């Protein structure tokens, strides 16, 4: 795979705050790339540098091998969907979406077709004539998405694109984004708070903390082999056990109930149980960690040996399923 975008040692400071700190990252052609990080970790700042609204103090940003540091935003084949949407309040939904195509001076008929198509996909056709202040939060978000998508840029930057949507629409839009990406062949960089969303959608994930890159990898890699305790905690649910100055981490689905054979076993009392779809989550208080261990059982395993709140159970796992951190 060829590299589309290469970010090399980029730093951006606001006064005394270093929003992005010597960050290097390569984004491949047609990749669906997720940026994950807590609030204030520099995700928006990084996207704004890629779109051309901030200039890095150090480092270089190359698109298709050419340094784009001094290319103004309107001349970059890059589009940004703003976290605040930034819809034009005096234009209709249709007008907002058509704006970017009008700037390309495309024929009217083509603009109408492309705007119509994208409104169909984002389920906005009914609202074509409305103004942004007559839309719900989720509808506005879809207008912002449609407005960026319709341009078919080389690189599409999405800042929390699905944050305001309800769960069902969100899942539908996740699939829709993936489908669109395959169809149009655009490279996506998506910022999200939601690690589950990143796992579902992304080809690769980068985890940011305080402007620095902690880890990059496929969803499988960052989930199964987190590089640090922070990364392990950030993605998915993780149990941490302190032992002799080290931290042992194990995923809830790797812990077994009443195991026949296991490298480690421990007894504990069930303090809570909750269904998550097909899976059963148990909270088991043990002496190993201050908070109860979280154990995830499949419906099958739960049926085989039913447990109730207050029961005493034996937990076991294999060392190969744990990760050890020294920080």
């Amino acid at each position: 795979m060829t590299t589309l975008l290469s970010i090399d040692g980029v730093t951006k400071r606001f006064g005394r705050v270093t929003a992005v700190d010597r960050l290097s990252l390569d984004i491949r052609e047609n990749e669906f790339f997720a940026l994950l990080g807590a609030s204030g970790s520099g995700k928006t700042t990084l996207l704004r540098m890629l779109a051309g609204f901030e200039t890095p103090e150090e480092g270089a940003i190359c698109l298709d091998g050419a340094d784009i540091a001094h290319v103004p935003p309107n001349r970059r084949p890059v589009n940004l969907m703003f976290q605040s949407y930034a819809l034009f309040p005096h234009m209709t939904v249709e007008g907002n979406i058509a704006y970017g195509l009008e700037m390309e001076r495309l024929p009217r008929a083509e603009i109408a077709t492309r705007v119509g198509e994208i409104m169909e996909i984002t389920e906005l056709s009914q609202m074509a004539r409305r103004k942004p202040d007559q839309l719900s939060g989720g509808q506005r978000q879809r207008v912002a998405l449609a407005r960026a998508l319709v341009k078919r840029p080389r690189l599409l930057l999405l800042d929390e694109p699905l944050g305001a949507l309800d769960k069902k629409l969100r899942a539908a839009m996740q699939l829709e984004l993936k489908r669109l990406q395959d169809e149009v062949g655009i490279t996506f960089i998506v910022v999200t708070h939601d690690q589950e969303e990143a796992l579902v959608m992304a080809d690769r994930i980068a985890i940011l903390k305080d402007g620095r890159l902690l880890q990059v990898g496929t969803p499988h890699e960052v989930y199964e082999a987190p590089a640090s305790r922070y990364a392990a905690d950030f993605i998915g649910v993780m149990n941490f056990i302190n032992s002799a100055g080290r931290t042992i981490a194990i995923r809830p689905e790797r812990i077994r109930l009443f195991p026949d054979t296991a490298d480690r076993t421990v007894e504990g009392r069930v303090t809570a149980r909750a269904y998550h779809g097909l899976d059963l989550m148990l909270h088991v208080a043990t002496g190993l960690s201050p908070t109860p261990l979280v154990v995830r059982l499949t419906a099958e395993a739960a049926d085989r040996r039913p447990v109730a709140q207050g029961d005493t159970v034996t937990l076991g796992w294999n060392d190969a399923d744990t990760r050890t951190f020294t920080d």
Partner: protein
Amino acid sequence: MNASNARSTALMAPALAWLTALMVIPCGLILALGFFRRGIYGGIEYSFTLENFALLLDPLYAGIFLTSARIAGTATLIAVVIGYAAAYAIAAAPRHRQPLLLFLAVLPFWSNYLIRTYAWIVLLNREGLITQFLRMMGYEGEPPSLLYTEGAVIVGLVYNYLPFVILACYAPLSRLNPELAEASRDLGASAFTTFRRVILPMTLHGIAAGAVFVFVLSIGNFITPALLGGGRFQMIGNLIYAQFLTANDWPFGAALSMALIAIMLGLLTLQAMAAEKGAGERREVLDG
């Protein structure tokens, strides 16, 4: 009527009484005056006539209305361009410095209108500061005639009413979300297109408010044309002044005043309707 309605009526009463006593009644009296005849030796003869209003259409007087509208219109145009640019610059300055800049922009209001106008005489007269400056730069010819020209009147009007435009345009400009301009650039628009299609339409109501202010205040002005125009450029204000105080034709003066008030009210109503329409459209679709 419920309690809160009663309270708001009570709160408005002093203002309404004030307006009635000092605005509505005098205006009514002036309007009534317009329908009477002028007495032979001045004064008023109380017999009904429409002559005064018919006289407004006389080319001589209609011409003065047109001249006034032209001067006020030019002043408005110049004030809007300069005022908008100034408001734009203030809104783009760092947040904490904006109050000071606004204060400086309205500072002239703290001095008397007459004094401010006299200051222009000092600047513009044949041996005034501008001529002296030109001499210093080595200019030898005739001093330029700047004072007592239409240009001087326009400069005086623009100078006096510019702060209104700055204030009226600053309000929407400072409230504009900077990400809108960024979104426009991101979608491929140049800085100029961004201004024309996003910033300007979103601040147009400020321009309209400022423009109506300047126009209405300019078209009825009589001090500036009297002092800076030297009486050579009659505007409606001067004409009305003359009817009441020198020609002693109060009924015709009243008819002129009414025509002027009608023009002003018409413009202010149009502007209020335009502002209301923008707000109304939004409500309508939400309810429907």
